[in-house]
């Protein structure tokens, strides 16, 4: 510690130790913050149609379009160390062969940002249940200056008759007439410092397991079981889907 340079190095060296220690304690403090998440998932409507993975594809595949009701109370996932929660809804269905594990496919997801996270365009904003107007485009909502705010506290969702974000298909290309399909909620809590944690159904210390969060089992209908209107097969766009790119999709406008 005899010269300024040595003192500089010593102070910085000990600072890194302190910073790492504090970060560790903060990471551990997540585990004493109690959690009691609950959710209910219900199937609203399911259709299976034939389609192509992309425009020039010769291969025809079967796609399932699943609408659902989702109500969640995940407020307790947001403690002081939570940056954001990646929430997703999986469709789980048994494989065609008994010795293979069940297939899982995500049909809907959302990035729920905590209060401490800086604004980002990909963050999920809960639709206003009272509003009958179509969703505002990004440009319009920016121009109106009023910040899009959720009508519910962070982590609380009430989505009746929600359209999926993704139509799903199977690796075999056949999805019609599958039985024992279940919708299951999952999440990934992303903290500021510390470990990522996923949804769990069992109690873990101060963390209660997820109550609900699984739909009743249902069967997929036959392909084209009933006449399908194109409007029924629309998918939801996340905010991240509106990134501007050449020939990319444009935000939905009011009159279109």
């Amino acid at each position, binding site marked *: *510690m*005899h*010269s*300024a*340079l040595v*003192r*500089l190095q*010593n*102070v910085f060296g*000990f*600072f890194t130790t*302190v*910073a790492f*220690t*504090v970060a560790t*304690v*903060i990471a551990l*403090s997540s585990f004493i913050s109690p959690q009691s998440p609950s959710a209910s998932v219900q199937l609203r409507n399911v259709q299976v149609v034939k389609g192509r993975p992309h425009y020039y594809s010769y291969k025809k595949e079967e796609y399932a379009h699943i609408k659902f009701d989702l109500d969640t109370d995940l407020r307790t996932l947001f*403690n*002081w*160390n939570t940056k954001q929660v990646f929430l997703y809804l999986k469709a789980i269905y048994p494989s065609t062969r008994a010795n293979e594990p069940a297939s899982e496919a995500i049909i809907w997801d959302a990035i729920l940002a905590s209060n*401490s996270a800086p604004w980002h365009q990909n963050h999920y904003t809960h639709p206003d249940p009272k509003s009958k107007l179509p969703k505002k485009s990004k440009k319009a909502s920016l121009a109106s200056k009023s910040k899009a705010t959720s009508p519910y506290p962070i982590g609380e969702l009430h989505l009746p008759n929600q359209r999926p974000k993704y139509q799903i298909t199977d690796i075999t290309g056949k999805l019609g007439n599958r039985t024992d399909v279940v919708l299951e909620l999952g999440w990934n809590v992303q903290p*500021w410092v510390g470990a990522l944690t996923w949804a769990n159904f069992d109690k873990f210390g101060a963390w209660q397991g997820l109550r609900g969060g699984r739909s009743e089992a249902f069967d997929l209908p036959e392909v084209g079981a009933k006449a399908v209107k194109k409007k029924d097969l629309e998918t939801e766009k996340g905010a991240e889907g509106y990134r501007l790119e050449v020939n990319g999709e444009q935000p939905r406008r009011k009159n279109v």
Partner: protein
Amino acid sequence: MADQLLEQVRDAVEGQIDFEGQRLAELLTTVLLGAAGIIAFLVGFMTQDIRLSLYVGLAGTALTFLVVVPPWPFYNKNPEGWLPPHNATSGFSIDVDGQKVG
């Protein structure tokens, strides 16, 4: 004149302090940074605001750098009484336990 000026600049940059000062600097580093870390966590946890934790921690660290790194006068309160420089022609002799060593 220029040499003198350079000497002063070098002293200021090197920032040498005495032995007691070094002990004190070591102690201050540990205490200040440790306290900053503990306070940062507690303040953040109480207010449930992790950003506050970050800022308190960084402020404490900045304070520590300011207190410890420059050669403040209180680090030089116990200067060591070094022997005067000498060489063979200076005729100066050093006695250690009755033996001439220099």
